[in-house]
Structure formats: structure tokens, C-alpha cells
């Protein structure tokens, strides 16, 4: 259907009003990503419509031709601004440089130049072909360069749509709404222009593309206002992911299905002594030990060691497969996690364990033996303190074993066996203390670490209880995959100062506890991903409750530092 000229004119006025409104709103949202190019885009389309309106209202043919030519400025601003907007809005602004903008603007600038100098050549002609009875002049535009300009414009339209379409699949509803509105905003005038150029769309000699910009303006306004285009912007997403990959503390190498390195971050390049530019596109087998730590099937359990002797660094290499939505493998990501400190700490603990287990016991045995020979009160004092040193060294050894358990994996035993073993030990050491137990019907497996925790709680409850008939009650419950052990005594209670130090998580030379037992309880429950609480027992004593997941349920795992 041919639109009457008055309707066309009204629609052109509407497109200007809407375009300027959207441009003002976009201008006010600067410097949000995309605002600058969007303003240019809206100015370009409004100028295009304005020039058509001036062409229609001009009396002289020369004036009409002039406005038609000037309209090319708007025509060619739109595609360049659209591409720049799409890049900026989707966070690809690093591609927008002065050089790229100039390169993008070469064809538009030449087009405008050829349009303004139209009578002197036929590359892009703008000429009157007919005069209607109502004074309307039909202007024809064409030529070789017209085709070039049209193809270039459509090409930039497609180039700009590609990153915007990527946002269509965003999980954020606001981004999906924004990108849908933007695609509608750009596809409508482009489709109109294609149909007009193919002669499919009837028009009264007027290019209807700017009229379609009224639809674009409404779409852009919806994106700005309804979908908060400049209030919620996807631009940082891409950059954030790139930033994380480039600057993450772990090294990362991406290898495609053909075994070619397709991405590598700075950390990985530094660790492996590679040049990023050289590594990219190189077969992984040439640069990496793909038959060792970098095997795509997970490889052996050995660490990757870089360097030699004291300067060597150790890395735990993890491989993760990357698959498409059909589950087909696209490649692998190797991540390098440095474990040098962890391994050194493990070595130190091994040495300390030996010192505590063997050397101290040997030395104290000698002291104890000589004191036995001397005899008398002083010798008894020496022997008592020597025994204390042995006890302390055993506690230290417990602490080391606690951390070794955490590092080496999670050994388990049944709850009942573990509690019985702990109780047998304290019953033997504290025969005057009465122990009462309440076990659950279930007998789930629990981590060996739990033994250190419960053993120290029982020892603490019995050792400091100086009443006539000291009693300790041990209650164990299993509920919803979590084990709760409650140790209640009727002793003097734990000093608030000791609990305060424990709660602070650290000791200083001026503020410290009196032993290591409670620290073992705290560290053990932390390793078990559990919790410990201390309450006052009535009329005297303390109730300590330890809660932790039972072995095999979610959450219980060795806590490797």
C-alpha cells in the first residue's frame, strides 16, 4: 500500500522527535558504555529524516537536491555509529581505536564527498527524474558507489548485530530485553532499506528508511528506559572474564582438541618460561610435558617441578575438559596451582614429628633415668616435670598428625570404635573419674581427626576435675548426616580467659592459653568442617559440644592448606 505523502511526512516528524528524545536521554547517561556512539546513531538517523523533510518542503529543485545530498551525512553516520555502539556496549571497546574509527569512516566520508559533488561524476548520482502534479519531485539516486555504500552499510549492520545477538542468550533478563530492543531497532530500518532498494516496498519516491527509524527510536527508548540499558550494562562481563583469566594467581593454559595451545595467561607463561605470542598456536607437545603433568586424561599424581634445588617451584596441575552443549569435547584447560609452600611445610612437619616423637622422648628418658638414680624429693620433682615435657611433646605430635591426616586424606573408623578407644585411654589414665556414655543406634564412619578432638576433650574434662567423685558424661547423636558429641563434666569449668584466647584464633607473647589441648579441639573441628561450642554446666563444670559431618556426607574432606 502506498502511504499518502502527509502520513509519510507525519511519520518523518515523529522519527525526528523520537530520535532526538532518545539522543538526549542517551547523552545524559554518559559515560556509560555505548552512550556516545548511540547518540551519534540517533543524531544520524534524525538528520536523515530532517533532510528528507527539508527536501519535501523545499520549493526550488536545486534546494531539494542539496538536502538530498546532505542527507547522506546522516545515512553514513548510522552504520559506523552502530558498529561502535555494539562494540562498546558489549565490552569490546579495546577494538575501538582512533585508527579503527578512521578506517571505518573512509567509505562513509567518500560517499558523502561523492554525493556532494554528484553532478561532476556518475559514481553516485542524485538527479531529478520526474515532477508530480502536486509539486513533488522524484529524485533518483544510484551509481556504482551507491551499491558500494549500500553493501558497506548492510555489512556494518551485520557486524554490529553479531555481538548484540551474543547478549540475547544472557542469563540476565534485563540484558536479553536490551539486546532484543536493539536488534529490533537496527533490523527494522535496515530491512526497510533493503526492500526499498530492491523495489519491493512501494513508496511515493521517498526513501522510507528514516520512517522506520521511528520504530528504532521507540526500541532504543525501551532499551534505555524499560530495560535500563545504561543502568545495567553487560560491558564489564566480557572484560571481567578476560581479566580473571589474565590476572588469576593460578596459571591457565587452554589446549584445543587438536592439541594446540589456543590461550595461555601471563602466570602460566611466566611459570613455564614461555612467550605468550610464541606459545599461541603452537602444538602443546612442543612446549609442555604432555606425557607427564599435562596429560589430558589427568596424568599421574606427581607435581610439576620447575627449576632446580632451592629455587625450584612445585605446581599441582589440574586438567578440566571443555565441552559443547552436546557434550563433545572442544579442548582442555590446564590450571597450575603452586604448592611449593605446602610441600615445604609438609617437610618441616615431618622433621618436627621425628624430633617430638623420638629425640625428646630419648632425652627425657635419660633425664628420668638419672633422676631415678639420685632419688629424693628433688629427683621426684625432676621426674614430674620430665613427664610433663613428654606429655607436651605427645600433644605436639598429635597436632602434627592432625595436620598430616588433613593433608594425606581422610582415614575413617566407626564412631563406636573411636569413642571406645578414646574412653579406654582416659579411663586408664584417670581411674578416679567416672565416665558415662550415651551412643546412638547408628554407627556411622567418622574421620580419625575426630579421635584427636574427642580425646582432648575427655582429657581436659578429667584432668582438671579435682572433685571427690568427678563425672564425665559423653553423649553422641547422629542427625541428618551430622554427628554431635557432647562432653559434660562437673569440674571447675574452663577459664573465660582461655576461651577468649581460643576464640581470637591466635596467641601473642602477652596473651596466650595454658596448653595446647583446646587448640587441638579447635583445629580438629575446623579440619572436619564442623563447629565447637562451650557452655557452663549446672551446678559446675563445662559442656563442650562438637558438631561435624559424618564421613562420606557432603562437607567432610581433608582440608589441604
Amino acid at each position, binding site marked *: 500500500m502506498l502511504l499518502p505523502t502527509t502520513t509519510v511526512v507525519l511519520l518523518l*516528524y*515523529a522519527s*525526528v*522527535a*523520537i*530520535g*532526538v*528524545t*532518545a539522543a*538526549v*536521554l542517551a547523552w*545524559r547517561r*554518559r559515560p556509560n558504555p555505548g552512550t556516545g556512539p548511540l547518540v551519534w546513531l540517533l543524531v544520524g538517523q*534524525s538528520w536523515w529524516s*530532517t533532510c528528507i*523533510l*527539508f527536501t519535501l*518542503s523545499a520549493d526550488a529543485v536545486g534546494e531539494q537536491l542539496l538536502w538530498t545530498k546532505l542527507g547522506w551525512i546522516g545515512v553514513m553516520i548510522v552504520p559506523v555509529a552502530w558498529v561502535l555502539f555494539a562494540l562498546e556496549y558489549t565490552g569490546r571497546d579495546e577494538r575501538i581505536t582512533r585508527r579503527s574509527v578512521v578506517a571505518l569512516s573512509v567509505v562513509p566520508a567518500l560517499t558523502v564527498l561523492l554525493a556532494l559533488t554528484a553532478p561532476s561524476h556518475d559514481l553516485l548520482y542524485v538527479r531529478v527524474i520526474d515532477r508530480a502534479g502536486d509539486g513533488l519531485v522524484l529524485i533518483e539516486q544510484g551509481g556504482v558507489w551507491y551499491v558500494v555504500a549500500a553493501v558497506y552499510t548492510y555489512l556494518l549492520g551485520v557486524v554490529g548485530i553479531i555481538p548484540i545477538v551474543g547478549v540475547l542468550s544472557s542469563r540476565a533478563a534485563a540484558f536479553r530485553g536490551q539486546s532484543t530492543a536493539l536488534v529490533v531497532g537496527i533490523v527494522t530500518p535496515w530491512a526497510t532499506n533493503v526492500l526499498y532498494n530492491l523495489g519491493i516496498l512501494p513508496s511515493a519516491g521517498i526513501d522510507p528508511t528514516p520512517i522506520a527509524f521511528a520504530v528504532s527510536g521507540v526500541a532504543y527508548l525501551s532499551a534505555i*528506559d524499560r530495560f535500563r540499558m545504561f543502568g545495567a550494562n553487560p560491558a564489564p562481563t566480557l572484560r571481567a572474564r578476560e581479566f580473571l583469566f589474565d590476572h588469576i594467581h593460578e596459571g591457565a593454559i587452554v589446549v584445543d582438541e587438536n592439541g594446540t595451545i589456543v590461550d595461555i595467561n601471563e602466570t602460566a607463561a611466566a611459570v613455564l618460561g614461555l612467550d605468550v605470542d610464541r606459545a599461541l598456536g603452537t602444538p602443546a607437545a612442543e612446549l609442555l610435558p604432555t606425557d607427564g603433568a599435562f596429560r589430558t586424561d589427568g596424568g599421574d599424581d606427581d607435581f610439576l617441578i620447575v627449576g632446580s634445588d632451592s629455587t625450584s617451584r612445585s605446581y599441582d596441575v589440574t586438567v578440566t575438559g571443555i565441552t559443547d552443549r552436546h557434550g563433545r569435547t572442544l579442548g582442555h584447560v590446564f590450571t597450575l596451582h603452586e604448592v611449593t609452600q605446602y610441600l615445604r611445610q609438609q617437610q618441616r612437619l615431618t622433621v618436627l614429628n621425628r624430633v617430638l616423637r623420638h629425640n625428646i622422648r630419648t632425652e627425657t628418658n635419660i633425664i628420668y633415668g638419672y633422676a631415678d638414680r639420685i632419688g629424693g624429693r628433688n629427683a621426684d620433682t625432676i621426674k614430674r616435670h620430665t613427664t610433663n615435657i613428654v606429655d607436651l611433646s605427645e600433644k605436639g605430635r598429635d597436632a602434627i598428625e592432625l595436620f598430616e591426616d588433613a593433608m594425606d586424606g581422610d582415614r575413617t573408623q566407626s564412631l563406636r570404635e573411636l569413642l571406645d578407644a578414646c574412653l579406654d585411654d582416659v579411663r586408664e589414665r584417670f581411674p578416679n573419674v567416672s565416665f558415662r556414655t550415651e551412643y546412638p543406634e547408628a554407627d556411622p564412619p567418622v574421620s580419625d581427626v575426630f579421635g584427636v578432638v574427642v580425646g582432648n576433650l575427655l582429657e581436659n574434662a578429667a584432668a582438671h576435675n579435682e572433685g571427690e567423685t568427678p563425672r564425665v558424661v559423653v553423649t553422641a547423636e547422629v542427625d541428618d548426616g551430622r554427628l554431635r558429641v557432647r562432653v559434660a563434666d562437673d569440674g571447675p569449668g574452663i577459664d573465660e580467659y582461655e576461651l577468649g584466647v581460643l576464640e581470637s584464633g591466635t596467641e601473642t607473647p602477652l596473651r596466650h592459653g595454658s596448653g595446647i589441648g583446646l587448640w587441638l579441639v579447635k583445629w580438629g573441628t575446623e579440619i572436619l568442617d564442623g563447629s565447637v561450642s562451650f557452655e557452663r554446666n549446672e551446678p559446675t563444670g563445662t559442656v563442650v559440644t562438637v558438631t561435624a559431618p559424618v564421613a562420606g556426607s557432603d562437607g567432610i574432606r581433608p582440608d589441604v592448606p
Partner: protein
Amino acid sequence: MASKTNESTVATGHAVSRRTGLTASIVDVGYRTKDVLTYSSAYLVFIAMIEVLTVHAVLSLPVNPAPVVVGLVTFSVYAGDRIADASSDEPASPERSAFVTRHRTLLSVLTAIAYGVAIAVSITGGPLALAITLLPGAFWILYASDWLPTLGAYFKRLKEVLIVNSAIVAGAWAIAVVGLPMAFADASLTPLAGVLFGYFFLDTFVNTEIPNVRDVDVDEALGVSTMPVVFGIRRTRRILYALDLLLVAFVCLALFSGVLSVTFAVAILAGLAYALALAWFVGRSDAHGRLAIAGEAKHLVVFALILVLSAGI
């Protein structure tokens, strides 16, 4: 207070209560309307339209869309300026700043639509009308927005430059008020149009400096060089006297040279007398808002006098 009145059990009490409630509602609506008109600068729209109608009357131009376009642009630029400066305006005009902040989204959309419609309507007046309509917006970008400083360290907002700030405002509005009705009417430039431009330029310049007296502390803190900041309030008042007297001399010259008719000269001189009287209050009155509005309202006085004197003649 309303609930106490409603506690009355007698019928007349209810009637009184309703009347009191109705009166309170009307008063409340009145206050709200006043707030909307003043804080959003909507009252300036009316005054700007009156200025354009004055030009119509003086130049004997046919009725055209120029007053509407100028009104829309005035609303867009002034309300837009208040949106941009809402936070920095807070110390000097806390109520206005709170109003603008509360209705920021609505005002932003309305001002954008106003400019879009103004541009579309101005196209009906031809390229010159479009250019003149674009001028206040373009000047505002140079004047108040932070676009110019982004070009380099040598550039700063023209709003911060002494004399230039008020001159650019005065120039933009004088061109719009005088040029737009002429562009719509396709009228040629005459000495009388030149006189009107001079009048509106100097007058707008003076009216721009009056609110700067209220904002002197804020402007100084923000590094905005206005007359009160640079010359002090007393000297600013004297400069404003001098500018108004210069304008009187200019109008008298136009009258005696035959460019301006007696009717219009009398109306404009009466308006200037009113302006001189107002200038006396600059720096002496704390009612800064009312003083600024009274300064703008001078154009109502001039237009009313033109209507009365024209009808009388």
C-alpha cells in the same frame, strides 16, 4: 489536626470539617503546583513564551509555532540543567534539589521529549528555525555539561568562566527569542530586530546574574567565576544598575532614532524601571528565589503594557 475535627459528633461539625479539609486540600494542591512550577523551571516556560509573543507584537509577525518551540526548549534546557546540577545545588537550594532528585527520572524523560518535539516542530519553520532551536541545546553542552572538559585540560565548562557564562546564556536566549519567530515568519533582519536582540541580550544577562548572588558561596566553592564571586555583592549590584541604565540609554537611542515606536519604548522603559527597582534588592534581600522570579516576571509587565498601550492607541 484533621482527626480532632473529625471527632466532632454534630452534623455542622462534619460540614466544617469537610470545608476545612477541602480548603486544606486546595491550599496543599496550590503549594504543590507552586513547587512544581518553580523547582522544575516550568514558570520560565511561560515567561519565555511571553518574551517571544513580545517579539511577535513589536515586529508585527504573524502567529507561528515559535512561542511553543521556545517554551519547550526552555523547559528542556533549564530543567535539564537542574537535573545535572542537583547535587551541587543542594547547599543553596535544598528544597529544589530534593524535588529534582525525587523526580529525576520523570523530569529527565519529560525534558528529553520536550526537546525532541521542539526540534520536530522547528523543522516546519525551515533550516534556520531548526538551527536556532538547536542553539540553546548546543550552548548548554558548552556551558554546563562536562563534555568540554573531556576534550583537554585547557578546556573547562563555560559556566565557570566570568562574563562568558552569563553572556552565552544571554546570547542563546536572545537569538532564540528574537530569531525563532522571525525564522518561522521568514522575516528579514531589520534594525528593530537588532534593537530587540540587544534588549533581550542585556536583560537576560542581568537576570542571569541575579540568582548568582544567592549561589555565591556554592559557586566559589565549585570554582565557578560569577560577578558576585569575583566583584562581591555590592559591586555586582552597581554593575547591574549600570547595565540597566545602559539598556535605558540604548532604548532611548532607538526611540529617538525612529527605530522603536513610542508604545514599545514606553513599555520597555517601564520594565527597565521595574528592573532597576529590583536591582536595589540584590544582596539586600534574603528572598533570593522570589527576587529571581520577580526579575524574570518583568517581561510580563512589558508585555501587559504593550497590550494595554496598543489597545489604547
